[in-house]
């Protein structure tokens, strides 16, 4: 394995990190809500892919859109039933509510699917190939590529379209936005739907190369939190940059120092960045 190979696989990994963090950063930035159930949303997206494969025999082409719809629905339902009521409360109420939701989802999955790990067949996304001396795994290339595309699409939707401007208006001042004829609740529900869709897509793609289990969300949530804080809350572009950075740092650290220390390096880097630049790489002061 050469360093180039390591960096390339780090970039692919980072694009996936960016994808499943973009939903979290969208909600965080728009509503100032910490979603502790975010990792479990990813987990349910992964199970959707497992179910689509085992019940219907469908690959990512079927499972990605289905997971997007399922998790978007879950996000909108969470918004109307829970988040809408706790978002104006103290931050502790948000932790309490979304952590309760996380346990609820995690153990519902445990009851339905059991504790055992599920994996999709390796051949589902065309094995692996060599290009210019670098080995690529089909599943990771697909996941990384889609991750990059969806994250960029989300970024441009927020910054370049009318609906994006309306969403940002609500996030800056909901009352003022309402006076301009924008319905804040509709925009916030839309944000949860979009975040859910991105998260569902991420889950369905991750399931093609990673094991699926009821508790997998816990690990993924920590990565997402670090990515979002490092990139700056609310900045999808920041999440993309931070995701790629973390992916590369992790891969290089695992290669140069040892796999055990890759997390140590990432967390240490994160704390260091927060110390020097508390608002994250792309965050506004």
């Amino acid at each position, binding site marked *: 394995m050469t360093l180039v190979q390591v960096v390339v696989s780090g970039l692919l990994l980072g694009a996936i990190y960016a994808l499943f963090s973009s939903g979290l950063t969208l909600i965080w930035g728009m509503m100032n809500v910490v979603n502790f159930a975010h990792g479990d949303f990813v987990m349910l997206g992964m199970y959707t892919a497992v179910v689509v494969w085992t019940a219907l025999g469908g690959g990512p082409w079927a499972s990605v859109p289905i997971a997007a719809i399922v998790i978007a629905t879950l996000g909108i339902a969470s918004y109307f039933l829970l988040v809408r009521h706790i978002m104006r409360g103290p931050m502790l109420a948000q932790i309490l509510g979304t952590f309760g939701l996380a346990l609820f989802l995690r153990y519902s999955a445990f009851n339905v699917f059991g504790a055992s790990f599920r994996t999709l067949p390796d051949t589902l996304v065309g094995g692996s190939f060599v290009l210019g001396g670098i080995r690529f795994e089909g599943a990771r290339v697909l996941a990384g590529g889609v991750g990059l595309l969806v994250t960029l699409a989300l970024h441009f939707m927020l910054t370049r379209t009318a609906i994006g401007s309306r969403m940002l208006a609500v996030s800056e001042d909901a009352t003022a936005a309402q006076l301009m004829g924008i319905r804040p609740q509709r925009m916030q529900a839309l944000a949860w739907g979009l975040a859910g869709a991105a998260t569902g897509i991420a889950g369905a793609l991750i399931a093609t190369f990673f094991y699926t289990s009821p508790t997998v969300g816990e690990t993924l949530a920590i990565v997402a939190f670090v990515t979002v804080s490092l990139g700056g809350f609310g900045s999808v572009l920041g999440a993309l940059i931070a995701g790629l950075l973390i992916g590369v740092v992790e891969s290089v650290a695992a290669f140069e120092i040892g796999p055990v220390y890759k997390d140590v390096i990432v*967390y240490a880097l994160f704390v260091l960045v927060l110390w020097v630049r*508390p608002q994250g790489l792309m965050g506004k002061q």
Partner: protein
Amino acid sequence: MTGRRILHLLLIAIVLVYPLLAADSPVYGRLGALVLLGAISASAWNIVGGYAGQVSVGHAVFFGIGAYASVTGFVHLGLPPIAGAPVGMLVSVLVAAVIGVPTLRLSGHYFSMATIAVGELVRVLSSTSDFLGGAQGLGGPAMPRSVFDLSFVSATPYYYIFLAVLVALLGLTHWIERGRMGFYLRAIKDSERAARSLGVSAGRYKLYAYMLSGAFTSLAGSLYLCMFGFVDPESGFGILLSVKIVVMAALGGAGQLFGPLVGALILVPLEELSNSYLGGQGAGLTFVVYGAIIVIIARFLPSGLLSLLERRKVVRRAD
């Protein structure tokens, strides 16, 4: 008022004789001690998280320091585990200063995220340390060598030890709450900028609260080790532990003296009884209910269960 006084005396009496009532059942005997241990951890968190409003989601760092200080004292020096408690508290104060000075400058969510990252950092590092027993963890004395090992078959001695610590901690918290520092902390929680403009050195008082909170969380960790005799990176430094501490305090009512105790009284029995009665198989289903209860409380009582009492008080005053 006499009715209230009778109620208070009755509650105190129940707390004091509970182990005797539960003596026949090992499950309920253990449960009493566990509720108190949970209440100690959450009450310690409450000083910085509740009163000062700095939501740390990494308090397992201190819990783990306490547990590991106790167990390493035994493994490497042959000391009774409880001898590690003051060492753990001292180390926790130092670690709190090291973590707190950079992170307490961060506001709101950023502070919470930084504490999560530090917690994970410590957990991963501890699993690579041979001194701390690596990923397998370390065990305390297998057989009690003397009474100082605090190794008892019955849960009753633990119950009274934990009760004494909790009463001391709540007494200290009450004293802080009513003193100058309590006012400073609440002012910082409401608006740090306003507190600063009135001459409160916010940074210093946040750090004091964090160090104090860390020291008592560490004590809870040492007590945990005395009772369970074992700790590994997940049970000592795991993020689930950090979150549970926050949830206990928030469920009862953060920033209120008895809030963490009320939270522990609800969450610990819910978890323990479901584990012992339903075993591994049913545990999934009961955690579904556990999660749902937390969601419902957050949805309808965002300031915790004790806010119900506050509401009644307001109504009474209005009458």
